């Protein structure tokens, strides 16, 4: 508080500075109070994660410290979840980045046509992911689905989409790509269009080859935007629930048991409050670490765009 800049004006009565000093707290307090309630279930989850606690067996409830976390390390189901989540996050984010960047490059010039296309491409992003899953479920129905019919035309008969363990991951990744590629596209398009024009003009005057311009000028200048968009999607993708739950509820078998899907089933199907809480704490630790990297990157980018503006 002693760092307040003192403006050399005649000091007024000491009662006056109190309100300005309290003002920021008064303004942000209501939002804070509403949010602080959320911390209660958060701490409850941390507390439950240290207990063997099954709603169906209340008498067996006991405090086991980090026992459940240690059990996880030797639990093949846990490692299956880690593997499935990693495959899901890596493939969705990787493919969405490539596709989103490609589309953004196609739409880079500010023409009327390009703007209409980019708005039309936003529609999947505005669809609720759970509903998007239902749409794709109808389209991949083995009896009448238009996509099942289409792949049969190309000679792939009995492709079972989300209901076969071998193609379930492919199907949900496809839905994720359908929903979220537009997000990548919007961010990268905004980035592309905000790049300074001089390097590109200089390259054109010098007759530099297109791929050279792309790899040596466009990509490096776009890199902060790419990193931001990728981290953002990565955080979401690690926590995917809606698409997978609406499509298959984690099945067939446990081929799509992402972190949150498993925690949901642990809690509601097996009433195992303790293990589901421990699983969520592990996911939280992972996302918290990643989100710190992300926020730092985000602020750096923000400072740059603010500085340039």
């Amino acid at each position, binding site marked *: 508080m002693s760092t307040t800049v003192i403006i050399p004006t005649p000091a007024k009565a000491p009662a006056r500075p109190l309100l*300005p000093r309290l*003002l*920021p*707290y008064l*303004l*942000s307090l*209501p*939002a804070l109070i*509403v*949010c602080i309630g*959320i911390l*209660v*279930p958060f701490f*409850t*989850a941390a507390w*439950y994660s240290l207990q063997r606690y099954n709603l169906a067996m209340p008498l067996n409830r006991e405090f086991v410290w980090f026992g459940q976390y240690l059990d996880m390390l030797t639990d093949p189901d846990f490692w299956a979840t880690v593997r499935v989540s990693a495959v899901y996050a890596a493939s969705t984010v990787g493919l969405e980045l490539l596709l989103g960047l*490609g*589309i953004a490059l196609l739409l880079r010039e500010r023409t009327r046509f390009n703007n209409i*296309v980019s*708005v*039309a*491409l*936003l*529609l*999947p992003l*505005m*669809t*609720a992911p*759970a*509903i998007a899953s*239902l*749409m794709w479920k*109808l*389209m991949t*129905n083995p009896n*009448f689905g*238009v996509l099942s*019919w289409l792949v049969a035309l190309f000679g792939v008969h009995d492709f079972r989409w989300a209901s076969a363990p071998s193609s379930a991951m492919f199907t949900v990744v496809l839905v994720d790509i*359908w929903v979220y590629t537009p*997000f990548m596209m*919007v*961010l990268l398009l905004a980035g592309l269009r905000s790049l300074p024009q001089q390097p590109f003009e200089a390259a054109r005057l010098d007759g530099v080859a297109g791929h050279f311009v792309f790899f040596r000028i466009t990509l490096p200048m776009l890199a902060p935007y790419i990193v931001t968009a990728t981290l953002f999607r990565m955080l979401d993708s690690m926590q995917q*629930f*809606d698409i997978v739950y*609406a499509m298959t509820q984690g099945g067939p078998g446990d081929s799509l048991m992402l972190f*949150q899907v498993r*925690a*949901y089933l642990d809690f509601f199907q097996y009433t195992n*409050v303790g293990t*589901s*809480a421990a699983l*969520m704490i592990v*996911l*939280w630790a992972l*996302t918290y670490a990643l989100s710190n990297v992300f*926020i730092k990157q*985000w602020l750096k980018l*923000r400072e740059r*765009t*603010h500085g340039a503006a």
Partner: protein
Amino acid sequence: MALHKLLRAAALTLVLLFFLFPIFWIVVMSFQTNEEILRLPPSLVFAPTLANYTALISGHLQTASGILDITFLHNLWNSILLSTCSVLLALVLGVPAAYAFARFRFRLGEDIAFTMLSFRFAPPLLVLLPLSLYFQDLGLNDTYIGLIWIYQLICLPLILWIVRGYFEDASPDIEYAYRIDGHSWWRAFTRIAIPLAGPGIAAAGLLSFIFAWNNFVFALILASADKQPVTVGALAFVTASGIQYGQIAAAIVLSILPTLALALYAQRWLVEGLSLGAVKG
């Protein structure tokens, strides 16, 4: 050069086809009878029927095993109520807070802002699962208030961060000049700062409405059957109606129509909010 143009056109056609065809196809299905849907090969030649929509709106569904009563319209109403109230509450709470974070450097200010932002990135089930036990104990799972409160987790961080950026971009000098003219702080805030950040507030409000509408997991875990929005309702409807594919398609169209229409209507703000919210802050 001609080849280059041709490739570009082909690529754009494929992209548009992939991203728009599913929506187009579901709309087509929603105007077909079950017999037309089940016919192979799929055809675009059919006599459109409104029967699927009238069944949803009247609430009586003709199934093989008799008439099924459905509450889909009630789900739609729940979605409207939950999303609207959550966004309004988040604006009332979030805009002053965003102003505080943008204009004042105060102790803990940055920490508070960060904590609220980090809510955006925490896995929702971490808090939702224990919360469902509390909600049952307190009887909150059958109220709108409990859900509107928890929907703040979606709306508040978004509004805080987008609107804060707008307040920071607007120079404080105009406000100072207005204050020197003898106006109160409150008048400077409502007459100068808020109108200047207007586009940001609109973009943030629009985006958080869409995200609240599209949310699935909060209501899936916390809401009783009577309070469920369309996202959860549609899934339950699929299970209940069995093979009434035309009605399922119509229910999907009704669920996504509001957000798609809103997005198209206010696309300028939407693009601005999306890119500023994530990139510019």
